[in-house]
């Protein structure tokens, strides 16, 4: 009964999907190695293997870039996969993100004493999903990539199984994510019903040759696709999961999630809407316009009132998604290249930021309150400088990639006649600059008083209680000796010598600290623990007990001590800062890269 005719299988060009194969195969090999060794795999070994795999995938992607620039893009595997500048840029971006995440996660895993290679394997698999999304030329392949990306991320969100918030985040992400995936698949079905194909090029071809009299089905499908993508990129009506998931996930995972999930989803978003539904742009551009407006405003507005730094960065990532939507809304090649540049710049900024957050979070990954950042600059100047640079870059400060990213998407919007949208985007950037700067200023403001070390100083002197707490880790230093001798001086003068390394900007920030403190008190939901003008709860307590400062209740001295900075995390943060600053000063290579990527776009 069975026919013996050979089923025609498509010619599979493995070179076209080599970066994906490297990541996925590397993940499988890593899992096998971790399972076969007798003891638990050492974290360092897992990190080294992951870095090697990511570097291999980066190398293959760069080779693909050379190939694509030489002879243009092409489709492969029965037109299901496309290799062009656009997809290669996404591959390079994702490879970099995996590499940096592996470095950041190393310190996290050692600190939390979690052995094994699960985190790295899941990250590799998830990243391969993002790559598939970037190079998909078929809606079904897009969906496949989306699921590979998401399912691994659901598990990664729950990775810190001993933290309740982590499980909550994973469950929330899982349920809402599956729901949005279902919506997305429904959209694919409707689009297939309307156009007769799931291939992106064939859909575009069909729409260019036919005029649909009843386009309700197509528009309904388009809307559902839009909803599915908007969920993944966390655009505003579909952003509810973002703050909880970003807060609950382990910090290195959050950085990975913000960079890779956003990049993969936006890559597919841009490709589907620009190449397949480019002719319908009159229909979807107003919707993207509205989405971008609410995403920009809600993201920036809600970030201002967050006390938890991870939640704040989550809302800021929503704000960033709004900016990338600006590039999509322009619906031009220029807009697409600006959006890609934005994603590329954002990847380094956000992974670096969450690397710092992960360090400050300490063991258990829980110390994420704004107050833990107070005085960071005095304890660890280098870490504070790096974090400040990354935050300012996210705010769009000059001489960082953040400025060029924001500038370009706004210009793309202006070029396309969406001037009000550009104005709103800039207003939201100004609003966003407030909370980035607030965190930066907080790091450079004096730390809260801590009673743990006060017994060493002469008891009974109130002014010391305001400044001496932060010098605990190096209290034997000569500066403190000098300070102890200078005790009768008033508070304001005491603060200056307490700064080691004599930062000239210090004197100027004193007033701004007071302003920010007042704003904090006015804006934050829980203003009780915020200090106003140095009137810390500790000094109030010191008033009550009189001269006996030994029993002053400090705001947990453990939180104002130095945090250990593992070497690999330092390398990752350094790389992120270097990319952000170097390409901020010399923007041309990266801008040209993104521009070339969309020139080589295969429609």
């Amino acid at each position, binding site marked *: 009964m069975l026919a013996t005719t050979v*089923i025609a299988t498509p010619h599979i060009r493995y070179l076209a999907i080599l970066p994906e194969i490297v990541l996925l195969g590397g993940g499988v090999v890593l899992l096998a190695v971790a399972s076969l060794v007798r003891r638990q795999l050492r974290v360092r070994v897992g990190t080294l293997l992951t870095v090697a795999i990511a570097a291999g995938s980066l190398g293959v992607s760069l080779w693909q870039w050379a190939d694509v620039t030489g002879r243009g893009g092409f489709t492969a595997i029965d037109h299901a996969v496309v290799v062009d500048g656009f997809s290669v840029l996404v591959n390079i971006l994702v490879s970099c993100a995996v590499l940096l995440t592996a470095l950041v996660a190393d310190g996290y895993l050692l600190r939390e004493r979690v052995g094994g290679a699960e985190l790295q394997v899941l990250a590799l698999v998830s990243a391969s999903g993002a790559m598939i999304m970037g190079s998909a030329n078929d809606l079904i392949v897009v969906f496949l990539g989306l699921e590979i990306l998401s399912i691994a991320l659901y598990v990664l969100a729950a990775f810190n199984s001993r933290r309740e918030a982590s499980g909550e985040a994973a469950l929330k992400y899982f349920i809402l994510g599956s729901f949005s995936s279902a919506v997305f698949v429904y959209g694919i079905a409707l689009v297939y019903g309307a156009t007769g194909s799931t291939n992106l090029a064939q859909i575009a071809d069909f729409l260019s040759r036919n005029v649909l009299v009843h386009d309700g089905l197509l528009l309904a499908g388009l809307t559902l696709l839009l909803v599915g993508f908007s969920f993944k990129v966390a655009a505003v009506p579909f952003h509810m999961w973002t703050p909880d998931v970003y807060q609950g996930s382990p910090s290195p995972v959050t950085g990975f999630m913000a960079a890779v999930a956003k990049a993969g989803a936006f890559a597919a978003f841009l490709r589907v809407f620009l190449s397949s539904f480019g002719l319908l742009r009159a229909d979807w551009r107003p919707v993207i316009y509205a989405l971008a407006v609410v995403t920009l405003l809600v993201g920036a507005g809600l970030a201002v009132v967050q006390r938890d730094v991870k939640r704040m960065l989550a809302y800021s990532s929503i704000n960033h998604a709004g900016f990338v939507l600006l590039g999509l809304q322009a619906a031009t090649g220029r807009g697409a290249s600006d959006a890609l540049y934005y994603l590329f710049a954002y990847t380094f900024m956000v992974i670096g930021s969450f690397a710092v957050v992960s360090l400050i979070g300490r063991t258990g990954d829980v110390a994420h309150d704004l107050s833990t950042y107070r005085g960071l600059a005095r304890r660890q100047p280098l870490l504070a400088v790096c974090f400040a640079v990354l935050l300012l870059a996210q705010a769009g400060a000059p001489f960082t990639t953040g400025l060029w990213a924001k500038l370009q998407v706004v210009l793309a919007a202006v070029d396309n006649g969406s001037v009000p949208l550009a104005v709103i985007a800039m207003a939201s950037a100004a609003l966003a600059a407030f909370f980035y700067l607030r965190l930066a200023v907080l790091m450079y403001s004096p730390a809260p008083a801590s009673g743990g070390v006060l017994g060493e100083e002469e008891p009974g002197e109130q002014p010391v209680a305001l400044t001496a707490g932060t010098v605990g880790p190096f209290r034997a230093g000569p500066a403190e000796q000098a300070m102890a001798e200078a005790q009768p001086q008033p508070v304001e003068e005491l603060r200056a010598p307490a700064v080691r390394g004599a930062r000239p900007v210090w004197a100027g920030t004193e007033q701004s600290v007071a302003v920010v403190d007042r704003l904090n008190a006015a804006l934050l939901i829980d203003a009780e623990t915020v200090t106003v003008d140095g009137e810390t709860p500790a000094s109030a307590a010191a008033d009550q007990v009189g001269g*006996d400062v*030994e029993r002053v209740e400090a705001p947990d001295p453990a939180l104002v001590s130095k945090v250990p900075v593992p070497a690999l995390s330092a390398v990752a943060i350094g790389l992120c800062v270097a990319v952000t600053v170097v390409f901020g000063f010399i923007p041309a290579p990266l801008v040209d890269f993104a521009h070339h990527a969309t020139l080589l776009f295969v429609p």
Partner: protein
Amino acid sequence: MDQYLPIFLLLVLGGLFAGLSFVGSSLLAPRRKPTGPKVAPYECGIIPDKEPPQRFPVRFYLVAMIFIIFDIEVIFLYPWAVVFRQLRVFGIVEVLVFAAVVFVAFLYLVSNGALQWGPGRRLQPGVSARTSESTVSRITAEPPAPDQAA
């Protein structure tokens, strides 16, 4: 529209069945309210007075995972088996790759102790066990009581 008639009929039938079940159960069920012990868990005549005394490992969960892994593999093997002559070498290679990936997942489960029955090793030896040493040092690290400090 004719082709949707069976679906519609099935919908009606489903609704009828669900509705009739409720009506029938309310007509036929005893009217007495169940007593306290009746609604308590472990209904076997003894009213439980405390929670189970200790944690016990849920091994069946991991066995179920192993089952699902191979279940899914078989689901993919069936259609391949039907047409494997037509797919020739390409089909065999692809299925072998697929089986290898599935096997690594199985390997991972086994290395994590999924098949070790009984009180085996912990799945995730992350939390350092509390020893007398750590407990004592934790207590002494606390600040002294106010009356002692004075």
